[in-house]
């Protein structure tokens, strides 16, 4: 490799010599350097104002259970279970540019795996958390094998969506025909279309007796913490060198490859991360309601993450997170208060987004804010 470039680099610029570069340069960032990536250029919310808002939002979420009953708080926690799948899709689709229509395949796989493991082994000694890790690991391995054929087979664009959708529909169809008693793994009956029930909730081992996390305040705090940790962790990932390459692939895969990147590896990496997060959602959903059915892998279920992520703004984690929570809340409210039209409203939201804010409503609002600020500044000067 040539020596370090001249810091002065005054014009006329010297030309890089044709020596060929060594690859595989390693960056040693250290812990603090890695943490700094949370505020990098691939995420929209940056700077003191954003982070002040973030802290306020966390505090509000933290004190919310003081002002609501356990049942309501437990229902709010239900919203949180879905956000991991949405953020995972943001990484695969929004950042890496590969539309996966099959997030629910991993959701269902991990959900059922959690059920099978915990029904057979139980919840003592914190095994439910071990089951969580194993079930998410299973999703990761499945994503690795499926993703290998997809990305190393150079399948992209709409075909990627078709194949991943087919995978989730095949899993749904398969699980729906497992009604007979012969379809059991150990003590766990798969139960066909009616779904699997009877698995324990996440259970924390405790000296005075295990604490089962039913949908209530402690589970709310656990999921809130996990969601924030996942959000911040993914911000670091997408702002890292790995994330830079993902965005480069989304913008122009040929160029990314012609800079010497093996883009298949990066796409596969993003697919595994995003699909594992869908698996995590599946486990948390199953543990939340002690219930999972083949419907969770069906066409309707598979379309929902696409809607949440597209409406919020897929190319940004913050927009995805806020958008997903907002859409879920609107949908739930409509459903609870008797509207038969919740799905129609959802469809309308998607249409409005695609037509008027193709990058997503939250990103659209952020863009509008930036535009107004720029105008005001120009007006003043």
């Amino acid at each position, binding site marked *: *490799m*040539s020596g*370090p*470039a*001249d*810091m002065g*680099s005054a*014009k*006329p*610029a*010297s*030309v*890089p*010599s*044709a*020596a*060929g*570069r*060594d*690859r*595989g*340069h390693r*960056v040693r960032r250290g812990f603090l350097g890695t943490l700094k990536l949370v505020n990098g*250029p691939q995420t929209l919310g940056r700077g003191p104002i954003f982070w002040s808002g973030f802290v306020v939002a966390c505090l509000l979420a933290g004190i919310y259970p003081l002002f609501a009953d356990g049942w309501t708080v437990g229902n709010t926690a239900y919203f949180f279970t879905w956000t991991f799948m949405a953020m995972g899709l943001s990484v695969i689709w929004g950042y890496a540019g590969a539309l996966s229509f099959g997030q629910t395949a991993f959701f269902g796989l991990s959900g059922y795996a959690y059920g099978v493991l915990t029904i057979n082994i139980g919840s003592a000694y914190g095994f439910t958390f071990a089951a969580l890790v194993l079930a998410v690991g299973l999703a990761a391995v499945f994503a690795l094998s499926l993703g290998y054929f997809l990305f190393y087979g150079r399948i992209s664009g709409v075909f990627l969506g078709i194949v991943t959708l087919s995978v989730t529909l095949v899993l749904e169809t398969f699980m729906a025909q497992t009604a007979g008693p012969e379809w059991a793994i150990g003590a766990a009956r798969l139960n066909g279309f009616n779904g699997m029930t009877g698995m324990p909730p996440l259970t924390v081992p405790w000296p005075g007796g295990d604490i089962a996390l039913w949908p209530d305040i402690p589970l709310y705090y656990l999921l809130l913490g996990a969601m924030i940790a996942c959000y911040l962790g993914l911000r670091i990932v997408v702002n890292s*060198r790995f994330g*830079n*390459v993902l*965005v*480069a692939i989304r*913008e*122009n895969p*040929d*160029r*990314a*490859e*012609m*800079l*010497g*990147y*093996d*883009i298949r590896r990066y796409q596969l990496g993003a697919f595994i991360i995003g699909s594992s997060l869908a698996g995590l959602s599946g486990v948390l959903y199953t543990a939340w309601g002690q219930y999972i059915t083949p419907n969770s892998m069906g066409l309707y279920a598979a379309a929902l993450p696409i809607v949440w992520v597209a409406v919020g703004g897929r190319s940004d984690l913050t927009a995805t997170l806020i958008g997903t929570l907002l859409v879920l809340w609107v949908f739930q409210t409509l459903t609870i208060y008797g509207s038969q039209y919740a799905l129609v409203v959802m469809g309308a939201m998607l249409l409005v987004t695609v037509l008027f804010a193709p990058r997503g409503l939250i990103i659209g609002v952020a863009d509008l804010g930036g535009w107004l600020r720029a105008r005001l500044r120009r007006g003043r000067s």
Partner: protein
Amino acid sequence: MTAILATEGLQKNFGGVFVARDIRFAMQPGEIHCLIGPNGAGKSSFFRLVLGQHKPNAGAIFFDGAEITALKPFERIRRGLSVKFQVPGIFKALTVWQNLEIALQDHLSGDSLAAEIRETLAFVDLAGQARERAGNLSHGQQQWLEIGMAISLKPKLLLLDEPTAGMSDDETAKTGDMVHRLNREGMSILAVEHDMTFVKQIAQRVTVLHFGEIFAQGTIDEIVADERVAEIYLGKAQ
């Protein structure tokens, strides 16, 4: 001297259509070589074969003395090839700085990365646009940004696919100047180009392709003087 790029019996056909027919090509290190030919002559296909985006039906490609026929595109880049596409291949949603950072991040970090980006920006005359979204640059500037990304890898051989397409006369002259400066530093350059003024400005040797075959080869003066070439190509172009 070992050729920097050579092909032997290179052949590529799509059904009955041959885009490369028994191409035996060689260029020496340090050369500026231009590929010309009428539309459909197989110039871009030849680039795709060299880059590994097309697999040849027969023949072999050698780069810097080693056969690269079976290598993946990114592996060829890592050996010291680099390319600037015909349509500007940049990351439009990102800033100019980020575009170069992505090109260089596997080689450098920290201060030396920043210094190298500044140096490259100065070279392609985009120092004032570092924070600009790449998609907002003028067409010519986008071409330069891509040249900047391509040369930041310090390639031994730079492939330029119509580097001056859509450029003004000034911009074309400036691009020719860049090519000469890169070449003086030892970079070999192979360019596909339609603009004969530009070809005359830069080319040391010229290869004319016609229906996927090498039709003529020589210095720019020899090619310009060749009546057969004028018949198939230059006559129409001028």
